[in-house]
């Protein structure tokens, strides 16, 4: 265009500048392509991919501890007396009578249960159910309840069943118990929650009287085993003022203990013992690598000496003995310090017992005792510790 406007046309160029620019560009591009191709070209080699499958255990190894809630006391030598936790089972005539409630629900009037944490963590839980049995303490009156589910460690409210306006259940009888079996599966979704569970039951009583509680447990299933969880701390705040009761055999050093129902003899007798049942809910197929029993005890009388030896049973089958009448497992003098015995129950591990899971799940331990002054004994802790895993 420029030359078109020139009054004196310039000599005609052999090649227009535009064409020259295009040609240079293409040529340079081709040359550059060849250089780049050379600079990046290289051989490489790759091994054939190899695959490895890795699977983790269903339940990692770990010690799970559970106390005993089912206790039979034969210290008198005249048969067994049920000394179990009052909330363990219904229909056993062992009940908890609360304080007097108000005739209207109040946020400061409740009974509360902290449950034990004996299950392997991190396992999905299904069908968790709160089992609660109660009755009015006065004929003709009516007691009603609703409850809340909490994480015990954080006091975080997880869910509510019923309300002050619409109670979950009522009882208008002082003799027939009302049974509540309320699913709390929406809140208790794993054993992590189950092992950290608190349930608070709000109540009212039409005559401002007490109510009776016969049962407070949580039951359900994991993928591997059924379970029941038991309370280890209960708080009665029915009156508005709290009274805390620890299940004495579940916690050591808490200032509570179980005192034998009767005085012991000064010598061992096969008819005088305490019997403890456990419910560790070890899954079928689990491998048990260790079992120990904590048994903390003392005399109830200053300067007297209490001694014990033990036997482990599954039903009527004697599995193992720990000490004997001639050689007690241990002795302890005085009523100020507990003997903190840990008994290794190596007969119950999988390596030594083909029925280890069954034997541990159905374990009953008899503690035969004698007391040098013929007095009662005090037991602070009975705890079974089971180390197991599930492949």
């Amino acid at each position: 265009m420029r030359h078109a406007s020139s009054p004196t046309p310039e000599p005609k160029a052999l090649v227009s500048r535009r064409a020259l620019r295009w040609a240079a560009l293409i040529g340079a591009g081709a040359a550059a392509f060849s250089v780049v191709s050379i600079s990046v070209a290289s051989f490489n080699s790759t091994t054939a991919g190899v695959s490895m499958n890795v699977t983790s255990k269903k339940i990692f190894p770990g010690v799970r501890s559970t106390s005993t809630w089912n206790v039979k006391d034969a210290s008198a030598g005249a048969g067994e007396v049920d000394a179990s936790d009052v909330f363990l089972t219904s229909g056993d005539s062992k009940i908890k009578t609360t304080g007097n409630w108000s005739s209207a629900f109040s946020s400061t009037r409740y009974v509360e249960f902290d449950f034990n944490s004996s299950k392997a963590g991190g396992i999905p839980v299904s069908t968790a159910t709160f089992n609660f049995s109660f009755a009015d303490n006065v004929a003709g009156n009516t007691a009603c309840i609703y409850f809340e589910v909490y994480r015990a460690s954080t006091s975080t409210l997880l869910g509510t069943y019923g309300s002050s306006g619409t109670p979950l259940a009522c009882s208008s009888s002082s003799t027939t118990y009302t049974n509540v079996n309320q699913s709390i599966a929406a809140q208790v979704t794993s054993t992590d929650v189950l092992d950290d569970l608190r349930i608070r039951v709000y109540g009212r009583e039409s005559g401002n009287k007490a109510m009776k509680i016969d049962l407070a447990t949580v039951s359900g299933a994991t993928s591997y085993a059924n379970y029941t969880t038991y309370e280890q701390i209960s708080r009665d705040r029915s009156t508005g003022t709290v009274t805390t009761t620890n299940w004495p055999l579940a916690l050591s050093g808490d200032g509570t203990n179980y005192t034998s129902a009767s005085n012991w003899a000064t010598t061992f007798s096969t008819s005088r013992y305490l019997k403890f049942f456990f419910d560790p809910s070890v899954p079928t197929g689990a491998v048990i690598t260790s079992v120990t029993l904590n048994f903390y005890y003392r005399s109830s009388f200053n300067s007297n000496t209490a001694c014990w030896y033990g036997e482990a049973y599954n039903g009527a089958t004697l599995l193992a003995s720990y000490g004997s009448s001639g050689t007690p497992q241990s002795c302890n003098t005085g009523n100020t310090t507990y003997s903190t015995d840990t008994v290794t129950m190596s007969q119950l591990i999988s390596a030594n017992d083909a029925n280890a899971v069954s034997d541990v799940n159905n374990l009953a331990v008899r503690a035969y005792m004698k007391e040098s002054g013929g007095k009662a004994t005090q037991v602070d802790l009975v705890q079974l510790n089971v180390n197991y895993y599930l492949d």
Partner: protein
Amino acid sequence: MRRNSSSRARKLLLTLAALGAAASIAGLGTFATFTSSTSTSNTIASGTLSLTAPFSRLGTGASPIAPGDTMQRAIDLSYSGSISFASATLTTSASPSSLLDTDATNGLQIAIDKCSQAWTEAGPPYTYTCGGSTSTVLASRALVGSGIALSNLTLTAGATDHLRVTLTFPGGAGNTLQNQSSTVSYTFSGTQRAGTDQ
């Protein structure tokens, strides 16, 4: 005039493009082989680059594992071609995947070391001892990764590196890693050495 000018430009354009292409071919030719018709022949052939694993335990899985477990698997990497390598990398992936490979902290960790001679194997479960000297090929790290650089390999054509892959399930792994399953794939890759005068 415009048509004639345009026509010349096209001719010139084609000419220059052809020259450029010729130049590029000539450039390539500098790396090619010439033969002559004289009695002396000069045959040049390209080398081969080959990375193989003539021996491998990596396909042997492990289950079920618990925190604190380790898994050792030996693998021999052979540079069986005629060209040495400049570097080698490892790429790992998982399918199916789980927390065992996605949890970089509490999931599986991988480390690789090399023995100057073949590892002495025991088991299963496999464990290995080195009768020579050992060196670190890969320091412990999360299992899954792409193009993970490997160190201290021989990489020389015709040589073999005796490697021991160790997977560790950290002792701090929590219950969320229970009942998990992953299938992990391992692929070793090598790149040829830089070009040299031949």
